């Protein structure tokens, strides 16, 4: 079975500071990992994904994520947060052995204060 955990319900940062939203996963095979963002009153949007290759993945809006196989983590990061980054962030994992089904985390609400 596959699972994903986002240990923080809420992350608060000041504008201009770096931000990290944490995600850990569990799969039996090789993982495919995704980050999605949901802005208020809107659907989920794709941010970035890790499939293979370089452990540091760059995505939309200046976000990046680092795949760490030994720690089974895929934390989302941004060097300098913007107020407009405030949203709900979801990590998702897909196991190669479980084709077609992604498992989503419970979500982390990011609030960036001016």
């Amino acid at each position, binding site marked *: 079975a596959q699972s994903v955990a986002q240990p923080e319900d809420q992350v608060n940062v000041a504008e201009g500071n770096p931000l990290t939203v944490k995600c850990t996963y569990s799969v039996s095979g090789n993982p495919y990992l995704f980050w999605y963002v949901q802005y208020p009153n809107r659907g989920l949007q794709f941010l970035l994904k890790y499939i293979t290759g370089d452990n540091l993945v760059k995505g939309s809006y200046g976000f990046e994520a680092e795949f760490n196989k030994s720690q089974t983590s895929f934390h989302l990061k941004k060097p300098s947060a913007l107020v407009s980054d405030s949203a709900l962030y979801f990590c998702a994992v897909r196991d190669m052995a479980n084709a077609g089904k*992604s498992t989503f985390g419970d979500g982390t609400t990011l609030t960036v204060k001016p």
Partner: protein
Amino acid sequence: DVKVTQSSRYLVKRTGEKVFLECVQDMDHENMFWYRQDPGLGLRLIYFSYDVKMKEKGDIPEGYSVSREKKERFSLILESASTNQTSMYLCASSFGTGDTDTQYFGPGTRLTVL
């Protein structure tokens, strides 16, 4: 750009009513998905479909059914709505059968069952 549309943004129904939620995508995607989103529970997969007239149960199919008569349209049916089905329902689609495929989400339907 991929566009996924859902028939209603807000819907209010009474207990016992039959409810249809419609989803249409315009990018000829093979795969379509229905999720429900509840606070603190993330996204949970209800049903998905790889092709016309085929369907697979997700993690929480009880109380729901689906229909995919045309490639672009995936309907979620609540045969007899209950109050515990009050939720945000999200439809998504993805291109092919590859495990790396990004999912594209609709804006969501917030269903309230009274």
